[in-house]
């Protein structure tokens, strides 16, 4: 299918996927409310900062950091690994393969189309964030906002591609959900989701720099809470997009080779 035809199909795909997200709104809301971890971590770090600040983090900075973490997690989430495992096992992936659009694109559209639903929870959180940091702390430099937008996009791409790559592993093994669980546990520890990366002990911090996880959540959050000067920010963004490229390559390889092994039941 030509590029133009794909582009023509996209708006309808978005509409259908968005309608689906709206249809399951109650479940969707519960899923979103289930991301309590940033708030739980905020409680611990606030208790720490109540006595004295940690580095540049006082109570206010922690509130700002973890509310931003909550929002960024919402904006960069993807659940394709679970979908793919289900579809490979039940053989329904065959239906997706019949369509003249690459499955990677249809999965991506399904995930992105749910974003407006996520705003229902993310927006009130954003208002709370604005209120907590105070109007004077909001970055006024448009370049910073652009960098934040780019970091969100890069973060989402890494999450999505990792999901897709691990989902493709379902072609090779019975179920790759456990691989996803391992990925998630590492992501929790190294992404800055539980602990701001700059508060890591030096050894952990060095490891985190080489892993993709901190570019999924830590980097966008740090950019919007003004943790970096221009040089560092650009260097980190560069690192993030190198990871996007690496993940994209790995994903395409895993998908292509895996697809050859796929035999839909009943097909």
């Amino acid at each position, binding site marked *: 299918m030509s590029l133009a035809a794909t582009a023509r199909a996209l708006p309808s795909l978005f509409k259908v996927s968005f309608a689906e997200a709206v249809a399951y709104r*109650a*479940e969707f809301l*519960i*899923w979103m*409310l*289930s*991301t*309590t*971890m940033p708030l*739980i*971590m905020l*409680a*611990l*770090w*606030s*208790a*720490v900062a*109540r*006595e004295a600040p*940690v580095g540049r983090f006082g109570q206010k900075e922690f509130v700002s950091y973890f509310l931003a973490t909550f929002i960024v997690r919402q904006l960069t989430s993807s659940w394709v690994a679970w979908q793919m495992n289900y579809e490979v096992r039940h053989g329904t992936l065959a239906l997706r393969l019949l369509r003249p659009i690459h499955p990677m694109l249809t999965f991506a559209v399904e995930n992105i189309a749910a974003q407006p639903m996520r705003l229902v929870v993310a927006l009130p959180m954003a208002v709370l964030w604005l209120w907590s940091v105070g109007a004077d702390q909001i970055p006024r430099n448009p370049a910073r906002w652009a960098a934040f937008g780019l970091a969100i996009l890069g973060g989402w791409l890494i999450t999505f591609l990792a999901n897709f790559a691990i989902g493709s592993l379902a072609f090779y093994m019975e179920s790759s959900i*456990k691989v996803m*669980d*391992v990925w998630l*546990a590492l992501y*929790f*520890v190294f992404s800055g989701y*539980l*602990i701001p990366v700059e*508060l*890591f*002990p030096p050894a*952990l911090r060095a490891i985190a720099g080489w892993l993709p996880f901190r570019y999924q959540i830590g980097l966008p959050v740090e950019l919007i809470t003004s943790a970096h000067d221009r040089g560092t920010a650009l260097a980190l963004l560069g690192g993030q997009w190198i990871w996007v490229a690496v993940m994209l390559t790995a994903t395409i390889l895993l998908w292509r080779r895996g697809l050859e092994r796929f035999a839909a039941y009943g097909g």
Partner: protein
Amino acid sequence: MMNGTLRYWRLLGAQVRASTLTLLQYRFDFFADGLLEILWAMTALIPLFVVFRTRESIAGWSFGEALLVTGWFILLQGILEGAINPSLTSVVDHIRTGTLDFVLLKPADAQFLVSTAKFQPWRATNILTAAVVFGYAFHLLERPPSPWGLLAAAFLLFTSTLLLYSLWILIVSAAFYVVKIDNLSVLFTSIFDAARWPSTVFRGVVSFVFTFVIPLALMTTYPAMAMLGKLHSSSLALAAVGSMLFAVLARIVWLGSIGKYTSASS
């Protein structure tokens, strides 16, 4: 009465055996899941290690003491996800597909049957992890727990489990009214995540909710305090009365819900 109790113990044994046999078919999964549990326990412990690098004590708790709370969290999470969650999640499926009829027809108490339908024995790794955490915590504290403290903690293990179970029955009872609650278990587990820190970390409204509405403080902080010999006997009584009240309430609500149940097939 005595005979009845004995019969239910034997039924429990049969149900656990059935779960274990199913599990033995997937031996690789058993080890993989056990390792995963340890990895997840690390995500609860690492923040403590990082936080206590900067401080001697947080919200009145030293590192060793806070580790005890997290140890209890890991232990109870094992019980929740190994013995409570799996069974009760399958109730929701029964209700949706209408197969709950078959459970209700069996000549034993329905609440007992659905509560013991499924166990995931690999979560027992959580017990081992918790034991290691307790050991390390008391090593840091440089003193062993008092025998009386251990006894109180064992009693609180019972009341905490009862509390968790009762809360779960209350949630499942909701499934009779609003059918689609598959992911309520996820929501509940993520609220329970807050039990990993000592309750004094939380302030204001949240602290009130976690003591009286969703009594997380009773479940992990109290047993840790008991081990330290810091728990007042009135708190012990509160835990006992509180968990009994929750259990009775859960039983009443369950019976009410089951009375209203109209099967999906008839």
